């Protein structure tokens, strides 16, 4: 991790986070930190609790215990729309673009809380700069885009209002390898602009290419936490914690 990131204060953090679905204890006392400008990966197999953590961070699944802080503000009791207004942006698993809306309307929904029209247009241009394909298809109904294009749109929708932290749930899921490469190249560019990213991924080798740090999850608990370089370079660690 670059020293300046190590010194910076957490943008987003949880302490002793718990999530229950009925009697199922999906997230068990997870504490994590994401510092300004950092890319943090949540790694683990299907069912490890990654999506439950992400959903509770963005306010879609209530935490049954623990705290979530955005900067120094406690947000675990706030609704999704308020968390969004405070600077969180979410790219959901499965993309979930607004299928009946055009590409442009989807992006405008991403900027729903931005009132300044000139600012909105400027941000749309930024997104079109990152994803030129979206500019060409800006009048197209989102449901008719390919999976990869929908993922670009979902990321563009989250970026369009310059969030403080971008939270992505399985951005590579269901995409062709060539499209995964495009998406991750773009995430790298976003990272280079200083954006803070939290990334849940089942495919550890992909996420570790851009992550600064990683948390490995098993059955709802953090079982290992380290800088991504260690996980990348140590096959024994990868084998022990990620089975790869």
């Amino acid at each position, binding site marked *: 991790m670059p020293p300046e990131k190590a010194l910076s204060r957490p943008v987003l953090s949880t302490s002793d986070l718990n999530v229950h679905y009925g009697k199922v204890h999906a997230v068990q006392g997870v504490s994590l930190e994401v510092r300004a400008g950092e890319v943090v990966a949540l790694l683990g197999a299907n069912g490890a609790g990654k999506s439950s953590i992400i959903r509770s961070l*963005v*306010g*879609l699944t209530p935490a049954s215990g623990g705290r979530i802080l955005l900067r120094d503000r406690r947000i675990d009791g706030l*609704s*999704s*729309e308020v*968390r*969004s*207004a405070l600077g*969180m*942006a*979410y790219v*959901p698993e499965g993309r*979930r673009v*607004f*299928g*009946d*809306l055009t590409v442009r*309307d989807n992006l*405008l*929904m*991403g900027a*729903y*809380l931005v009132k300044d029209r000139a600012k909105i247009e400027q941000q749309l241009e930024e997104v079109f700069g990152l994803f030129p394909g979206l500019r060409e298809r800006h009048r197209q109904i989102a449901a008719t885009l390919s999976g990869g294009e929908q993922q670009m749109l979902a990321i563009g*929708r989250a970026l369009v209002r310059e969030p403080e932290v971008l939270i992505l749930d399985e951005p590579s899921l269901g995409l062709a390898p060539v499209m995964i490469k495009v998406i991750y190249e773009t995430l790298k560019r976003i990272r280079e602009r200083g954006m803070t990213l939290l990334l849940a991924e089942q495919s550890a080798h992909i996420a570790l290419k851009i992550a600064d740090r990683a948390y490995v999850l098993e059955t709802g608990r953090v079982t290992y936490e380290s800088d991504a370089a260690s996980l990348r370079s140590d096959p024994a660690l990868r084998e022990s914690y990620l089975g790869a």
Partner: protein
Amino acid sequence: MFDQLFIGGLATGCVYAVVGLGFTLVYRTLRMVNFAQGHVFMAGAFLGLVIAERVHLPALPLLFVVGAVAFALGMVLERLVFRRLYHNHEVFIVGSIGLGIVLMNGVRVFFPEPVPFPKVFGSEVVQIGAARFQEGYLWVVLSTLVLVVLLHAMFTYTRTGRALRAVAADAEIAATVGVDVKRAIALTFGLSFAVAAIAGVLIGPLYFVSFDMGDMVGLKAFSAAVFGGINSIPGTILGGLVIGVLENLAGGYISSAYKDLVAFVILLVMLIWRPTGLLGRETPVKV
């Protein structure tokens, strides 16, 4: 005779289409059917009647005031009643039927017998081709056209309209981009109440108004929405027009006794042949 029946059917079909739009707006957002919609149409007619008799408002302000009052009532009832029923579709259906019965009997207390509606849209007879009809029929058709254009413009070009469409597409994700979903749902109910109440005022001067007038119109508007595709606004409008015209033609050429049958035969055929309706699409069930 055909022209006469066609234009009469078109006007009735416009009413089915507008009341049906209320079903569609709520269904798109909640995947639930508000069976109080027909009774809101009836209540709108009586609200228009009271305002027209007491305040003597001209036609356009009358439509606007009734629409605005119904819009506010829809938002209030969403907060007080409907919001408590969302958790279960069956509960919602029974609750909305119950609310409709309350509305109907509430009006019945004050108006136990059918009453004439003031001729707020004029009483001139207009001739187009061989067809002669009351001026009110033109008001119904033109007002429907204006309503549809306004709704289309609102949904397409305004921030609020986009937000309502986003909530209809995926409420959870709409919340994560900052939309107040509860408020969006309340606005949807407000709009559905407003369009139904306006339809009530439009049809009022053409017939007598009575506390039970919403029963059949509500069912036919629902049939129109299912026929066209209950999640499709253009489909519902098309469905309303087709049912209105066909039932009027059947009433004229076969027998008026069979007029009401047409809507329900069309509904049955559509449910068997194409349950998603003419222009509707399958929508995933919200969980």
